[in-house]
């Protein structure tokens, strides 16, 4: 139980402490209680609430299915993804398609996740640390499944609301997002048929649906307005297929990031096997990489008032001028804008990046 108490004997001895006696403070800081808050007996006690799974001493149950019984009936880990994320058993064709997608998402050479894993491995860590780090490489450019998927859903809703055809909605989407990294159409797969083959397989298995249909229209629209050759890329193929399999954009993001992490374990292992560990202070950055301010003497501390420059801006005009100046300092962050919003429902749909 908690033990909230006033402890006036402590507060009385303190005297003035900084600005804590200011009348601007929202309450009297010298009369604040000590101790912890008692348990709330008026509400139900805390429990881990879940729609996904529960377990007891003898069972683990996901979406109503005992997971051991699921495996004993001959299902597998790929089926479990449908159970966990969609609360349903997939058709044989859906399971086959997800296997296909996951194989294609497993390995991607020395791309971000593998590099993250290898860099963490160089520090002599657990393998799990490297695998976890690799997941952090998935954002709204690389592995932009939620950004792409949510955009598709938004424009499909728009089409429905405004009575647009798929082709018209695709043209609108392309016109408004042509330069975005998560368009699903780019010049990345002009020589590699893997993306197109994935759609062929989805159609053969009978799992292709409205999302694959829509991205095909997007490809047409992008080709019509792009100056350079473009085509369906792996982001567009993979994500549209996952959406047609019934996964949400966020579930797709999660499943494919984890899928890639299975491979980065091998990259961790290879890095440890073939390369050495890196020590603190070992890595040098050559002077020729540097284009910041020239080397200069540190002013004596006693001269601080002579050399120091205030960063305070007292007028909006002053602020605007200072901001433009600040943008010139690479690494300061002033030239980047981000919209940090709650990504619970949808993520990756806001434009972020360089100003």
């Amino acid at each position, binding site marked *: 139980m908690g033990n909230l108490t006033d402890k006036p004997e402590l507060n009385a001895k303190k005297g003035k402490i900084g600005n804590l006696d200011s009348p601007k403070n929202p309450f009297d800081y010298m009369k604040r209680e000590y101790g912890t808050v008692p348990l709330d007996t008026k509400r139900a006690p805390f429990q*881990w609430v879940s729609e996904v799974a529960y377990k007891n001493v003898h069972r683990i149950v996901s979406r109503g299915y005992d997971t051991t019984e699921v*495996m004993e009936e001959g299902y597998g880990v*790929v089926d479990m993804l449908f159970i*966990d994320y969609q609360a349903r058993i997939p058709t044989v064709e859906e399971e086959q398609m997800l296997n296909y997608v996951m194989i294609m998402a497993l390995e991607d050479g020395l791309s971000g996740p593998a590099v993250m894993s290898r860099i963490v491995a160089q520090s002599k860590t657990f393998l*799990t640390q490297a695998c976890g780090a690799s997941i952090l490489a998935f954002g709204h450019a690389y592995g932009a499944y939620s950004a792409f998927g949510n955009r598709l859903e938004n424009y499909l809703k728009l089409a429905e609301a405004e009575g647009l055809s798929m082709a018209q909605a695709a043209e609108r989407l392309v016109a408004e997002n042509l330069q975005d990294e998560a368009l699903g159409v780019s010049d990345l797969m002009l020589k590699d048929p893997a993306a197109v083959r994935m759609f062929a397989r989805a159609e053969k298995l009978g799992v292709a649906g409205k999302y694959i249909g829509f991205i095909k229209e997007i490809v047409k629209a992008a080709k019509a307005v792009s100056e350079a050759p473009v085509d369906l890329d792996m982001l567009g193929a993979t994500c549209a297929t996952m959406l047609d399999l019934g996964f949400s954009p966020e579930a797709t993001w999660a499943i494919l990031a984890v*899928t890639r992490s*299975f491979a980065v374990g091998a990259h961790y292992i290879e890095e440890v096997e073939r390369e050495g560990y890196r020590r603190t202070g070992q890595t040098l950055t050559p002077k020729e990489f540097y284009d910041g301010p020239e080397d200069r003497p540190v002013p004596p501390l006693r001269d601080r008032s002579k050399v120091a420059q205030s960063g305070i801006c007292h007028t909006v005009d002053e602020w605007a001028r200072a901001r433009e100046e600040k943008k010139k300092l690479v690494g300061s962050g002033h030239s980047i804008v981000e919209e940090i919003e709650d990504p619970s429902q949808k993520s990756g749909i806001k434009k972020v990046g360089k100003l």
Partner: protein
Amino acid sequence: MDRDPLIRRKTAISYKTEEKTVMRGYNLSELAEEGYSFCDALFVMYQNRIPTEEEEKMLKYEMGVFMEHSMSPSAVGAIGVSAGRPNLPCTIAAAITTFGGVHGPGAAHGYMLNKYIERAEKEGRTIDEMAKILVDEYMDAGRPVMGMGQPQHIDSDPRAEPIHLKQEELGLEGVYLEFQRALEKHFHARRKAEGRSYVGVNVVGSGNTALMEIGFSPNAAWCLGSVCRGFSCAAHALFNMKKGRAWGASRNEPMVQMIDLSMIKYVGPDDRIVPKQEDRQEYARKQKEEGEYKKWVI
């Protein structure tokens, strides 16, 4: 567009060109088109080989039962991180990195098995003899025997024995299963002789045995398990993000929330006055001399 690799490395795992992505010599598209499963691809990735049908089934089973485990450190980690509403990958990364020396210590179990099987070979002992030596050495030293015991499934992990049975059903019994079975036998016998309660095999003890048997290294097996759990932890985080309350402390929810203030129980030093700066040196010197603070140092 810059398409150069982010770092320069010789690698025997894969290469990727404008035309194709090749893993251990196999074009990924060809592998998928041929109808191989994701589990098959993991054998190619970690073992450079196409597995037998039985081996593929074993991996599919093991990963399937391991994937979802409701509230374990990994799911709690994911849910805890989701409270601040970062991007979803952060919650998954947190979940996977909870796997360490206690939660799902697959590599530790694998290294233990390899070490003692190697000793059996070098010392000319049988698997059964060496398993007893392992149990005695670990228990004499007061060390937990990897793969035994689970704090929630106190009558033995419900996934564990079925994994052993599946391995046997598929005809995949080898030196690892023989060793693990012997380990469990001697472990149970010793605890019984000492009048201690029954502690069953856990999913690492059985699942990792199966993974080692079908050729995965300790770290590869650990990767398969801990990363696979990431799938379900992401679902738990996503549920909380889409249907739960951010922050986890709302007083308007009918149930007390995860980090409601009343969830805090404090057992540290008593409340005390912050010393004035003018008293600081004397106060600090005295505090160091008395040394009472040391019992709180962590």
